[in-house]
């Protein structure tokens, strides 16, 4: 995470874009792997989880940023966690109110947004040092990047593993789904394939055709 401290207080689209691509929380930073692997088994779940996380990310980043001068360093982790947990609880109620079906599908994972390290990571690394506007854009970008990553994973896993996309059957009755893709093993496999692809893209952009494996550290 190389947030440039020099360009303080000036809003730029880069705050938004970097989360989508250059610092994508899943494909580049490899953060928040628990929900990424657990809830990306279908496109619908992935999208809902991504949106819920984005909401929590935006609200907590904005609030942390608003209170950044009021929170002493010593109690910052406790304060951040309190703020994050509050919004996760709110999301939990909201999803129940919006659709019980969706709530049934996401199950226990909504509560686990609390421990998604992307959210605490952005609060600590960005929102606690930057203005509300910048933090909002950063959170929006990171959330969008997370949603995008989850959706790409979910789409691949659902299409191959169940033969449907957003619940719509693609291949008809004769398709024998690869069950393993919706199981944890398939999650690791798809994630690995996407990471390979994104690293390959990155390397190509740097105009260094040789593939280097020591670039990323997987948590």
């Amino acid at each position, binding site marked *: 995470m190389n947030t440039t401290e020099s360009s303080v207080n000036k809003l730029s689209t880069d705050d938004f874009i970097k989360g989508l691509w250059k610092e994508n929380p899943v494909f580049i930073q490899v953060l928040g792997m628990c929900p990424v692997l657990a809830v990306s088994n279908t496109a619908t779940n992935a999208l809902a989880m991504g949106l819920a996380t984005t909401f929590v990310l935006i609200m907590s980043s904005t609030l942390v940023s608003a209170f950044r001068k009021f929170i002493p360093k010593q109690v910052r982790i406790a304060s951040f966690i309190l703020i994050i947990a509050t919004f996760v609880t709110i999301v939990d109620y*909201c999803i129940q109110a919006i659709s019980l079906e969706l709530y049934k599908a996401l199950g226990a994972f909504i509560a686990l947004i609390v421990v998604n390290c992307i959210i605490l990571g952005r609060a600590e690394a960005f929102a606690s040092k930057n203005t509300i506007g910048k933090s909002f854009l950063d959170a929006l970008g990171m959330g969008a990047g997370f949603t995008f990553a989850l959706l790409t994973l979910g789409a691949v896993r659902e299409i191959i593993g169940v033969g449907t996309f957003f619940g719509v059957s693609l291949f008809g009755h004769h398709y024998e789904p690869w069950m393993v893709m919706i199981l944890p093993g398939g999650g690791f496999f798809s994630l690995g394939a996407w990471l390979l692809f994104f690293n390959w893209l990155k390397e190509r952009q740097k105009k260094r055709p040789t593939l280097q494996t020591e670039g990323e550290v997987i948590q």
Partner: protein
Amino acid sequence: MNEFDLKKLIAQASSWEMIRALGGIGILCSLLIVFAFQVTLPIIEKNKTEYLEKSIFNVLPGATSRVTYKITNDNNVELMQADEPKVRKVYAGYNDQSELVGIAIEAGGQGFQDVIRLLYGYSPEKKAVIGFAVLESKETPGLGDKIEKDPVFLSNFDALDVSLTDDGSAPKNPIEMAKSGNKHNPWQIEAITGATISSRAVTKILKQSTGEFIPIIEKNLAKFKRDETS
């Protein structure tokens, strides 16, 4: 961290400031949570009631109206008057001619991940379970959650035999699970391949619940029919 930094840190935040920050954020957060809870509570309750209502008519095909009965502690059936939360309830469904279609019963038990709550319809005429719906489950998406939507599995509950013994005290053949492709008797539930634990959980819940409720319902069947105009 060198000595200078440490001194600066101590000087920066007094105990009061820390307590003020945490306390302030705590109060704000609790206000937010309570507000969200109060706003969404009626909608959530409404959603749950609607879902239950929908499920009742789902598990009792042909029913167009329903009446809630409660089962008293001495296993008698009474018409449910006011909303009593901690009481065993069953829902009797009637068709357009006010004839009893069946009785929907709620049941629950431990599944693979968490508690499974389900609803099934019992037809006194066929002496069988005629419908089945999952109200709440956290089974593995893509595998265990097939208990909710897999058509082959759900066809188990089109006519699942639960006829009672001659003295009416218990089902003649308790519901049991059969491996996929090995269903030979009408009281067997054919398991889903790859979701054996969830299938077994459903079987266990149904076996336990039918063993408890069907004898009570059969004993009080006249009451369900007599009250059908109310």
